[in-house]
């Protein structure tokens, strides 16, 4: 454990239990000012809980916390805030309909008598922005600015309250991939200004890039803390999962090129979004649909499913694709949508209902739903996809990100689809779950399902796809396969139209 004048906060023997579940056990930790300290671990490892404990969202069940050498105990986030400890969570706590200025100044407005002194308030906020060299348009409505700017607003709000330690909880989970770098720069900037920064994430690349110190958590225990410089991607994966991962991507045999395609898209167009998109996928083939965020790749996928209107020709399984989502699903399409919480799952409904949502027809008879048969088949398919749950009646939201994603895979697998459209299938899942999702995709491809894979992670696209269709500004900018399929060729094509 480091000793020195820079130590701001120390935890000794800190534990946390929820009901009967142990979330954290015997954590000893020191956090230094001027450093970015990352907490890394799989979902459920306790990293978020630890971050929340520090900023007073949870109180520790045992152990002690010292700030500047004095024991502290926070009963609420407000008390932690009074000591200069601030948390910035995944879901931002801003008022989207108010201006940036109103949001930053909230509760700290300069007043004269009963009135808010608007000019002095603005000057105070401007002074904070200048001091940390972090500029945002104060008059913009928060709801209108990009997420990374919104995070800046939260940071400024923390700074204007004289924050000394800022905890970022999965700040990039909801961020488009091109906004990750600016956020990491912000994080570095805060440390350079002398703040202690705690960065909770399961994105190993981000941690390797931005953190000075890294603490690995697994199953509520602290595995090790050390300088990031001594860690590599492999050593982190090993620490996080507790096992050495073999080959990261499974081998998927390419289908015979003579096999006729199961999906043929010709001249698919949605004015202003994408145009003249044409490609084929054969059974058992994995085709990557790559491109920058905003290039139209997800919109193309949705149009293939029939969820958005588009002109052009979609031929599927030997005929013209039906007019509705329902028709295309029953013809054998399946989709894992881009955002599982917003587009995929009913987060408060039982797991079983989430799995069978697209397949209720097969459980329906003259006497209504056959719930016993539904349960049997869901249990079987969950076992096949490795979905771990306590009870099928638990809400989907009670599961980890990886297991939530597996609900969607189980739903897809239940229909034995001829085509699976997987849009960002591993977003927000931990390292171990990632590999099992790759295996699921490989397994479906091996059984003859055509896979259309969309991902912001180029490695993932390269590691899994037989062929990659690159989209740029709504147009196909290239089709890469075999030896031509390299990261640089892919990036060149992705940027070609911009």
């Amino acid at each position, binding site marked *: 454990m480091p000793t020195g004048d820079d130590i701001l906060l120390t935890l000794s023997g800190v534990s946390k239990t929820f009901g009967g579940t142990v979330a954290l056990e015997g954590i000893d930790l020191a956090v230094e000012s001027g450093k970015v300290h990352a907490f890394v671990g799989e979902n459920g490892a306790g990293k978020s809980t630890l971050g929340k404990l520090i900023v007073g969202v949870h109180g520790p069940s045992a152990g002690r916390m010292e700030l500047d050498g004095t024991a502290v105990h926070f009963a609420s986030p407000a008390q932690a805030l009074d000591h200069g400890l601030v948390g910035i969570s995944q879901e931002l706590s801003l008022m989207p309909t108010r201006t940036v200025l109103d949001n930053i100044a909230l509760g700290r407005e300069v007043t004269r008598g009963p009135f808010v002194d608007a000019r002095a308030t603005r000057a105070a906020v401007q002074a904070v922005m200048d001091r940390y060299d972090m500029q945002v348009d104060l008059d913009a409505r928060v709801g209108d600015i990009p997420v990374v700017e919104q995070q800046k607003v939260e940071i400024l709000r923390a700074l204007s309250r004289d924050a000394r330690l800022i905890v970022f909880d999965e700040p990039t989970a909801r961020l488009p991939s091109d906004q990750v770098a600016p956020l990491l720069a912000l994080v570095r900037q805060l440390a350079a200004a002398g703040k202690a920064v705690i960065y909770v994430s399961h994105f190993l690349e981000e941690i390797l890039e931005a953190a000075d110190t890294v603490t690995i958590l697994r199953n509520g225990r602290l595995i090790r803390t050390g300088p990031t410089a001594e860690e590599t991607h492999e050593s982190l994966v090993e620490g996080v999962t507790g096992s050495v991962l073999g080959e990261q991507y499974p081998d998927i045999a390419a289908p015979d090129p003579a096999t006729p395609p199961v999906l043929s898209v010709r001249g698919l167009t949605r004015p202003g979004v994408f145009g003249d998109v044409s490609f084929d996928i054969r059974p058992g083939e994995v085709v990557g649909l790559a491109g920058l965020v905003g290039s139209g790749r997800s919109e193309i996928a949705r149009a293939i499913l029939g969820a958005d209107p588009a002109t052009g020709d979609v031929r599927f399984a030997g005929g013209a694709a039906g007019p509705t989502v329902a028709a295309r699903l029953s013809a054998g399409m399946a989709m894992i949508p881009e955002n599982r919480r*917003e587009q995929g799952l009913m987060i408060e*409904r039982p797991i079983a*209902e989430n799995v069978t*949502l697209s397949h209720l027809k097969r459980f329906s008879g003259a006497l209504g739903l056959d719930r016993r048969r539904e349960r049997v088949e869901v249990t079987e398919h969950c076992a096949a996809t490795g979905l771990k749950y306590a009870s099928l009646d638990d809400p989907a939201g009670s599961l980890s990100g990886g297991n939530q994603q597996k609900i969607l895979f189980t739903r897809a697998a239940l229909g034995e689809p001829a085509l699976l459209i997987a849009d960002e299938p591993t977003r927000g899942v931990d390292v171990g779950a990632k590999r099992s999702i790759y295996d699921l995709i490989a397994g479906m491809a091996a059984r003859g399902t055509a896979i259309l894979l969309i991902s912001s992670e180029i490695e993932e696209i390269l590691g899994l796809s037989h062929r990659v269709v690159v989209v740029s500004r709504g147009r196909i900018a290239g089709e890469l396969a075999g030896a031509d399929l390299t990261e640089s060729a892919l990036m060149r094509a992705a940027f070609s139209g911009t």
Partner: protein
Amino acid sequence: MQKTILFAKTYGILVVTVALFVLLALTTDGFFSERNMRNILDQQSGVLIAACFMTMAIIAGNFDISVGAVYVATPLVALLVENATGSIPLGILAGLGAGAVMGLINGFAVTRLKVNSFIATLATSFIFFGTGYLVSDRAIMRPESDGWRDLARSRIFELTSATWIAIAVVIFASILLTRTRFGRNVYATGANREAARLAGVATDRVQMITFVLLAGATALAGILGSSRAISAQPSDDFSFIFAVLTAVIVGGTSIAGGSGAIWRTVTAVFFLAFLSNGFNLHQIDPIWQRLIEGGVILIAVSIDAWSQRRSG
């Protein structure tokens, strides 16, 4: 502890209702008598019929304020046709048909015009109340044939026909919601509309059907009400929708959509009925009844909010 909270959260309304029932049965003369029980069932039949389908509409993610107006207007349409033709079945059919059309209008406004359901049905309330004045020429209407009064008042095994109809509707609606594909789609539509759509659920059609069922059921309740009163009159009376909404909300169906159950609403209907019946038997001033009732509702929903927070 967690199990206790979960139990309280799930069955709280049932526990409270049973407790109130036992309390009143032990302390209040005339409460637990056959006649009083029969009366309560008969009085609540209209609210029960509409509240079942209000529960369904709310689970699908929509409010329907226009139920108050549908309840007033549809029996007037029914009596208009009955007076003109002398046929009771034609009158009933016209009333139910008018309800279905009103439901279609609500559904159209919400799914096609994309108006927030609360606002859309507030607007259609005026249209439907106005329709009531139009068809009745602003006068009380009475049925031509004596048979009209038998619709709600016939006795079958000691219970009124209105009671039997309400029981049948409750069972039908419960089965529809819990045992069929349509019911699942209702929950899915309210829980996450976009996810449901991408999973192949025709969410617009589901919402449309819940509006039509609700307005149709309300028309049935309205016709039974006109049979009990042997008349119907136009008004701007919102009291029916208040009774229906109160039952759904006290029962614990989430106004956010996606969760809730018909048994909860049915239980809450009886909770509220026992409460006001107890007041009456103790001859408490109706003004105080209102004040206390409002307080009880507030307590009920805050307990619900508290338990949701605890478990969440």
